[in-house]
């Protein structure tokens, strides 16, 4: 059993946090998990991308094909769409991406993560909306536990906990 995932965006979009929350829950569920982050040298506005492998044994931390990919900006789409598995699902942040994907995969889902987050009250929660949406495609990760993990992740800023939990829920329930 092996799930290969890739999440990518621009620094500040919360991609790493999204990946970490997901991985923490996967570990709790007993999986062997690898979270491999990649950064640019720049302090601001650089690429943040991670490969996540959820498996039952030792695997390559570098994925061959993403069964699930989330791209939050246009450059991420251009750079990584060639890593899509033909049977995989590509989630495109349509708030920031106007171009059409050019790759083979089972389905492409365009979701306006930023519009959804802005409507909820804070565009910064777009990453949690995206995480919620991702979970629709990950039956092996229980939503409830992720919700608890989101609460934990924002422990230090209790004020923003409800908003982020709501964002996760909204993403999860988004049609």
């Amino acid at each position, binding site marked *: 059993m092996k799930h290969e995932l890739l999440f990518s965006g621009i620094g500040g979009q919360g991609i790493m946090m999204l990946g*970490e929350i997901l*991985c*923490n829950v996967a*570990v709790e569920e007993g*999986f*062997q*998990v*690898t*979270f*491999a*982050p*990649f*950064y640019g*040298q720049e302090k601001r506005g650089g690429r943040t991308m991670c490969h996540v492998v959820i498996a039952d044994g*030792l*695997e*390559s*931390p*570098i*994925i*061959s*094909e993403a069964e699930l990919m989330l791209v939050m900006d246009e450059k991420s789409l251009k750079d990584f769409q060639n*890593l899509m598995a033909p049977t995989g699902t590509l989630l495109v942040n349509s708030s920031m991406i106007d171009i059409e994907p050019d790759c083979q995969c089972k389905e492409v889902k365009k979701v306006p993560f930023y519009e959804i987050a802005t409507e909820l009250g804070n565009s910064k929660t777009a990453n949690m909306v995206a995480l919620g949406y991702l979970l629709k495609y990950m039956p092996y990760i229980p939503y409830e536990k992720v919700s608890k993990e989101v609460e934990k992740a924002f422990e230090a800023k209790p004020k923003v906990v409800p908003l982020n939990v709501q964002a996760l829920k909204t993403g999860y329930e988004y049609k």
Partner: protein
Amino acid sequence: MGDKVFMQGNVALAESAIRAGCKYFFGYPITPSSEVPEYYARRAEEEGLVFVQGETETAVFNMIAGAAATGNRVMTATSGPGFSLGQEAMSFMAAAGLPAVVVEVMRPGPADGEILAAQGDYFQAVKGGGHGDYNTLVLAPCSVQEMCELIQESFELAEKYRNPVILLSDALLAKMRENVELPGRKEQNCDLSWALTGCAGRKHNVMTTCGDGSAQWEKYNLDLQEKFAKIKANEERWENYQTEDADIILVAYGSMARVAIGAMKLAREAGLKVGLVRPISLWPFPVKAFEGLGDKTFLVTELSAGQMVEDVKLTVPHKENVHFYGRLGGIVPTPKEIFEQIKKLGVK
């Protein structure tokens, strides 16, 4: 053993070193190793650690030499540019018999280069990047778990042979998080009669690497060589995966070995008989891992322009059967990419 955590390589390594009784850390921040000094600095008070941020790696490597000379467990962590500055002290510590542990988190050079994963410092670590005839033990983990175990073992080996030990990591292993069961506390248990502590109740100890005539210095060198020969004979470490029936054998270490495991699985699924030799000790190079594999075809994969491949060619009987595939600049190939290379070798 006990604590099961999901931890970043650098952090898990630092925690395991602390648990190994390494109370002294001298360092200089450099990506992708900085979480190690940061962790030591953060834990210093509660664990009673001494953390010093030196002005340069040149100074830092001399500081760990000084600390090691007192018989205490000591460590630094750096990356290629800093490791280069440390080379004079690596030569010094090997000559003076100082058991310091150095974590080298490789990133792509030459020069400043990039900050993602690379393995281009193999020669520097394995062949002795400083001057003179010396060697340092080099251990290369391939997972966060193995990193935790090998860092603890590094201190024991350093003390056993009174020689510096390099733990060769890379930006991928250092920055990635994995499930890990942290190793327990270890106690230092070795002869320290040689250490500099003030000569109360014993004859004074002197450490010098300044020769006293050619005859004396040749003898000094021959003693060192004898030690290196003993390390070679006793400390080869490796892991072989499905090599017996294999037609093609991948050779890879560190994070690249993980990619090779993925490639091997893809190949096996496609019906190709592919195995893997994974050197864990890079010096001494695990010659014994290749015993009985003389007639196989080898594909050495590295995040370099081809460095360990030279040692593989020196080891196997038919070097024309040794092929190489590498990526540079911080790009780590995917398992599929390596699988494509395997197919190109066109094995029956």
